[in-house]
């Protein structure tokens, strides 16, 4: 068998006493000072800003009633037993009569957002919405009725907050930018209020190193 992986003996860098005392301290200080003036900040000012997640994020789940064929695969595969089937009387268009059919409802007290139900649905009657920050008033509200399960939950943060997204950068790792709906063009986020608040946090983080 071909094994390209090879062990490579390495050594912890040793330094002379002078090198350690001078170079070690100076190196640490230099890096600290560098990031004091040019910090990497990724702090999200949450209620004022929210992350615009991309499609494909496993958020809350919505049922498309007309596509459901009552196969109960979603309820069977659910690892947390959050999905249950309920019987209701519906008018069947093919057979032209009222009949009992089963439809899934979800209990968000139990749901772990693994997305197995969405992936196993043979008609793609379930889909994820790309957000996850919702508030319910009581535990009972989190057990959805069939009507609620068909509606996309209200995304309250999006009403007031500014959508931001993080892009990858070679120098900074992740950089927070404003999310623009059309065209996909992004600009650097440099609001006055935003940077003032992150400034304080950045200094705190630097405190330990300097």
């Amino acid at each position, binding site marked *: 068998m071909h094994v390209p992986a090879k062990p490579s003996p390495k*050594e912890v860098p040793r330094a002379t006493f002078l090198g*350690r005392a001078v170079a070690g301290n100076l190196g640490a200080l*230099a*890096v600290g000072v560098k990031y004091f003036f040019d910090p990497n900040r990724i702090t999200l000012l949450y209620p004022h800003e929210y992350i615009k997640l991309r499609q494909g994020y*496993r958020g809350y789940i919505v049922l498309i009633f007309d596509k459901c064929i009552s196969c109960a695969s979603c309820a*069977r595969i659910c690892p947390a037993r959050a999905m249950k089937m309920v019987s209701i009387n519906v008018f069947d268009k093919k057979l032209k009569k009222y009949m009992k059919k089963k439809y899934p409802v979800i209990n968000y007290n139990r749901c772990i957002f693994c997305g*197995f139900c969405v992936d196993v649905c*043979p008609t793609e009657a379930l889909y994820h919405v790309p957000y996850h920050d919702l508030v319910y008033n009581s535990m009972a509200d989190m057990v959805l009725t069939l009507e609620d399960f068909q509606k996309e939950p209200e995304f309250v943060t999006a009403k007031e907050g500014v959508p931001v997204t993080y892009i*990858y950068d070679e120098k900074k790792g992740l950089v927070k930018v404003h999310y623009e709906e059309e065209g996909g063009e992004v600009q650097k986020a440099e609001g006055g209020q935003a940077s003032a608040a992150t400034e304080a946090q950045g200094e705190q983080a630097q405190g330990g*190193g300097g």
Partner: protein
Amino acid sequence: MEAAPRLPGMEVRPVERHVYEVQIGPAHPGSGHMRIFVEVDGDIMVRVDPDIGFVHRTMEKLAEGRDWIKNIPLFERMAILDACNITLPYVEAVEKILDIDPPPRAKYLRTLLCEINRIASHLYGMGIFGVFLGHSTLYMWAFGDREVFVQLAEDLTGARLTHSYPVFGGVRRDIPDDFPQNARKAARYMRNRLNEYAKIFLNNPNIRKRLEGVGVLDKNRATELGIVGPNVRASGIKYDVRLVEPYEAYDELDFEIPIFEEGDSLARAWVRVEEIRQSLNIIEQAVDWLERHPREGFMHDRFWKNAPQLYKDIYNGKIDYAGKYRVKLMPLFASLKVPAGKASARVEAGRGEMFYYVESDGKNVPYRVRVVSPSFRNVIAFKYVMPGHRLMDLPAIYGSFDYFPPEWDR
């Protein structure tokens, strides 16, 4: 000393004069719930006893009552920051019983997520290590840089931590179109960043004084105790599952396995930094491979051959609300029956060797799943490494082993 009362399962430990017992835990702000009994004579630890079983959660028994696929999200809960590595051997073992071998693209995708998880896990461990030593800068840095790799994992799987990514026969998603360039940027960023980690933390004289020669685990002792993972490689033993028994795509990738000889806390911190470097190489190689090859073979034919047109449309992004590059699961996954048989599999998780033994009697639930997690094998080292050191060295040794209580007691 007169006879102490004896009850089954009860252990009575006489405490010597001038020795005090300190309990580290049960709620630890750094690492989660765990408990270590420490006896100190003055400031010197004379006896250290990790309380194995303190946060036991009956993972193995729970697995016996769940369908095969439902165990994947369950086992992830052992170490959610290392989710793909933790569930992969279970999936591999079940694949061995089902007698299927995932196609090459699925293998590369799994390898890719495994390495992203390994980096995220090492950075998490280093951040905790830093804050244990009072170095809160490293804590902020490591957790901030971990966010880069958590974001990569989110782009790939749709979830930050509990990915549930490998399933029997394949994976659940293919890489998004902009993933390769993002991964390369992240890798280049992290490589530069590791040099700065060395400057501010590992070569910082304050930190070296705390770590050098502290908690030395020599070769013989490490072998005796069965330590695994980066901890054993820091003691000079060339042992890595990726080396001795390559799984998934590791036999086609070119990478090194860093070995350090010292065996002290500093070497254990360095071995993680070097491993992150190698993981970045692996990510770049895997991404190159995935870009070069056509998008096919993400799921074994047995589960994809009869896929209806709708499934292929969803994969190709033709249904607007459904997303793109999603691999649908066939409905038979919900009621999968695995033929009778037994299999075992192991992978190199972030903290060491992760081993599963799976036994089936032909039903829709496993007959037995045995889990051996790396932190469980590493924790016993505390008992032998710590005595003789001062109490202030406990966090340094504890942090350098990068040990994770939920995985220790599963």
